[in-house]
C-alpha cells in the first residue's frame, strides 16, 4: 500500500557527537538530582513504585538514570500515523520529516475580508479541508482556535470539526482534562470502527505538554495517562522559553526541554509499555525588548537542529517546529522567517514539523502562509530527493545531438525527463513583467489566497457516516452536560 512519502532530512548538524553526549548527561543529571514537580498523586505513586525518588509532600519525582534509559528503549522507533483514507497513512521513522499546522492561535486572517479576527470553529473546518488538499501537508490541526464554542468543550469540538473535514492524520491539541480525553478517544474509536481498529490504525494523536520549567499540571497528566492507556501516539513536548522559563543558553534550554519531555516518556512507558511516544521541545526564546515569546529568531532554528541531533542519539521520534513567524501580518518578514525555519526543520530531520502557517508568534493563523509553505515544502522535498546521475541524465549523447549552438527545447530527451527532473512552480511566479501584469499583477499572498479559496470551493471530503456523526454528537452533548454540572 502506497504511503505518504516523508522528506528525508537530517543533513544539517550543529553539534558534535561529544556535545550531544554532554547534553544527554546533563539531561540525566537534571532528572536525577532535580526532578519534575508532578501535580498528580496517582502518577507519583506509579513512579514511586517504579523506583523514582518521590517526595509526595513537595510532589517532586526524581528519575534515576536506568528509569529514563529503559523508557527510551521501550518507546517504539517506528510509529504509524493513519488517516481516514489509508492512502494518507505515513510512517514516522529515522529522519523522515512530515509537516502540518498547529492549533490554538486565538486569531486568524479572514480569507474574504483580510480582517484579523478571532478564530471560529468553521475556520478550523476550512483549514482541515485546505490541508487535506495541499499535497505536502501530512497531518492536520485547525490552525486557530474556536472562540465561538463554550471553552469547556473546545477540546472536543475542534478535533471533531477537523476530523470531519480531512481524511489525513489528525492531531488533537490537548486542553487537559481526563474526562474530555476519554470522550475524544471514544469519538476516534467511532470513526475508526472500534478500539482495536483505532489502536492498529491510529487516525489521531494527542499534542500535550508540561509547563516549563519542570511542572506537570494535573489536567495534562490526566490526559497523558488516558491517552497512553489507549495506546495511541502521543506528543509530550514543552515550550521552554529561553531567558524566561528556561536557560538563556541554547544548550541549557534544550537540556531542560528534553528532560521535561523524557520524564513524560517514563510515565507513558510505565502506564503502557511500548506506547508510541514522540518527544520534543518547542524551541522558543523571550524577546528581550517586548517581553513576548519569539518563534522566528535564528536561535529557535539552531535549537531545532540540536533537538533533532539528540533525537537521533536516542533513536526516538521527534516533534519539530517550522513554517512560522513573529510577523503580525503576512509580509516579507513572515515569508522570510517561515521559509528559513521550514528549511532548517527539514534539514534537521525532526519527524513531525508543526506550526506551519503560524504568524504573530503563534497567536495568529494565516491560511495564505500555510498554502505558501506547502509549496516551499515541495521545493525542499525536491532538494532532498537528490539528483540522478547516469548515462541518460549525464546526457552526453543529447549534448552531441543538439549540436553546437543548437536548441534542447524540441528534443525527445527534454520531453522525457522534464517532469522527473523539475518541479513545476504553482504559486511562485516565473513569468515576465508584461505577462505578470496581464495576469492581474498579483502578489504571492493574493495567489495563495485564491488557491485557498479555490480549494474550499472545489475540494471534496468524504463525510463521516451519518450514524457515526450522531453517536459523536450524542457523546459531546453528554460531556457538555457533565462539564456544566461540574462547573456549577
Amino acid at each position, binding site marked *: 500500500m502506497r504511503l505518504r512519502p516523508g522528506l528525508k532530512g537530517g543533513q544539517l548538524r550543529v553539534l558534535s557527537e561529544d556535545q550531544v553526549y554532554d547534553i544527554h548527561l546533563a539531561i540525566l543529571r537534571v532528572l536525577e538530582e532535580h526532578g519534575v514537580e508532578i501535580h498528580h498523586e496517582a502518577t507519583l505513586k506509579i513512579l514511586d513504585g517504579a523506583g523514582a525518588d518521590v517526595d509526595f509532600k513537595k510532589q517532586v519525582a526524581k528519575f534515576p538514570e536506568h528509569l529514563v534509559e529503559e523508557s527510551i528503549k521501550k518507546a517504539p522507533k517506528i510509529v504509524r500515523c493513519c488517516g481516514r483514507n489509508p492512502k494518507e497513512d505515513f510512517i514516522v521513522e529515522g529522519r523522515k520529516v512530515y509537516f502540518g499546522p498547529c492549533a490554538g492561535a486565538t486569531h486568524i486572517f479572514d480569507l474574504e475580508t483580510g480582517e484579523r479576527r478571532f478564530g471560529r470553529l468553521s475556520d478550523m473546518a476550512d483549514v482541515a479541508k485546505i490541508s487535506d488538499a495541499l499535497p505536502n501537508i501530512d497531518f492536520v490541526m485547525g490552525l486557530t482556535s474556536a472562540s465561538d464554542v463554550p471553552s469547556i468543550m473546545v477540546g472536543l469540538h475542534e478535533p471533531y470539526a477537523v476530523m470531519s473535514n480531512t481524511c489525513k492524520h489528525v492531531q488533537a491539541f490537548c486542553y487537559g482534562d481526563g474526562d474530555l480525553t476519554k470522550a475524544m478517544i471514544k469519538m476516534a474509536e467511532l470513526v475508526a470502527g472500534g478500539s482495536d481498529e483505532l489502536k492498529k490504525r491510529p487516525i489521531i494523536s494527542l499534542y500535550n505538554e508540561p509547563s516549563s520549567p519542570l511542572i506537570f499540571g494535573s489536567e495534562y497528566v490526566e490526559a497523558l495517562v488516558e491517552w497512553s492507556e489507549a495506546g495511541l501516539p502521543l506528543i509530550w513536548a514543552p515550550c521552554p522559553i529561553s531567558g524566561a522559563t528556561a536557560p538563556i543558553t541554547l544548550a541549557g534550554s534544550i537540556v531542560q526541554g528534553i528532560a521535561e519531555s523524557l520524564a513524560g516518556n517514563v510515565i507513558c512507558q510505565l502506564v503502557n509499555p511500548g506506547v508510541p511516544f514522540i518527544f520534543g521541545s518547542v524551541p522558543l526564546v523571550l524577546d528581550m*525588548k517586548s517581553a513576548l515569546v519569539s518563534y522566528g529568531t535564528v536561535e529557535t532554528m539552531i535549537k531545532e537542529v540540536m533537538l533533532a541531533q539528540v533525537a537521533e542519539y536516542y533513536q526516538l521520534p521527534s516533534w519539530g517546529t517550522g513554517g512560522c513567524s513573529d510577523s503580525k501580518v503576512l509580509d516579507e518578514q513572515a515569508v522570510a522567517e517561515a521559509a528559513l525555519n521550514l528549511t532548517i526543520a527539514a534539514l534537521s530531520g525532526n519527524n513531525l514539523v508543526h506550526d506551519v502557517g503560524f504568524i504573530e508568534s503563534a497567536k495568529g493563523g494565516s491560511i495564505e502562509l500555510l498554502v505558501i509553505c506547502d509549496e516551499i515544502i515541495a521545493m525542499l522535498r525536491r532538494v532532498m530527493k537528490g539528483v540522478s546521475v547516469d548515462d541518460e541524465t549525464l546526457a552526453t549523447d543529447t549534448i552531441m545531438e543538439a549540436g553546437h549552438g543548437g536548441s534542447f527545447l524540441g528534443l525527445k530527451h527534454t520531453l522525457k525527463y522534464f517532469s522527473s527532473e523539475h518541479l513545476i512552480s504553482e504559486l511562485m511566479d516565473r513569468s515576465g513583467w508584461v505577462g505578470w501584469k496581464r495576469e492581474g499583477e498579483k502578489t504571492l499572498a493574493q495567489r495563495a489566497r485564491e488557491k485557498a479559496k479555490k480549494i474550499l470551493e472545489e475540494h471534496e471530503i468524504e463525510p463521516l457516516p451519518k450514524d457515526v456523526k450522531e453517536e459523536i454528537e450524542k457523546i459531546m452533548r453528554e460531556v457538555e452536560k457533565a462539564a456544566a454540572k461540574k462547573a456549577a
Partner: protein
Amino acid sequence: MSHEVLEEMKNAVVNFDVDKAVESARKALEMGIDPVEAIEGGLTKGLRIIGEKFEKGELFLMHIVAAAEAARRAIDEVLQPEVLKRKAERKVLGRVVIGTVAGDIHEIGKNLVAVMLFIAGFEVFDLGRDVPIEEFVKKAKDVNADIVAASALLSTTLLVQREIIEGLEAAGIRDKVKVIVGGAPVTQEWAERIGADGYGADAMEAVSVAKRLLGAE
C-alpha cells in the same frame, strides 16, 4: 563626600551590582545621609538611567531586572527599614499592590510589570503568584494602596480578576483604589466588562496606564 556615596549607589544600580548597592546604602546611612535622599539621590537616579537606555534600545529586559534587583535589595534590606523607623515620607508616584491571581502560577510577565513600575517610581508590593483574593484586599488596605494590579494567564483564571474587584467592593475600598488588569487572555473589552480602571497589553503600557490613572506625569 555624601555626593560621592550617592554616586556609588547610582553606579551600583547602573552596573547591576547588588552587593555594591547594598554596601553603599549602608555607608550612606553611616555617614548620616537621610534614607529618603539616599533612595532618590542615588538609587532612583540609577534606575532612571537604566530606563532611558532600555527605551533607546541600548539595554534589554534582563538588564532592567538586574538593575531593579540591585536597587530593590538596597531599599528592602537597608534603607526602607530606616525610612519606616523615622516615619519618613518617600516620594513615590503611588503605591501598587500586584500579584498573579489565585489558581495561576505564571508570574514572569507580572514580575516585569512590577519591575517597570518600580523603575518608573512607584512603590510596589509584589504578592507573588497564586494569590488569594483576600490577600490582595488586605494588602491594599494595609499599605493604603493607590493601585491594585492583577495578572492572569489562563482563560480559567481570568475570571478571578472580576472576583478581586468584587472583593474590594465588599471591603468598602473599591473607590479608594484603581484596578488594573493584564495577562495574555486579557483584553480591553474584558477590563471594561468587569469594571477595571485600566488595562495594559504589555509592561510598558501598564506603566503609562498606571501613571495616567493617578494623574502622574
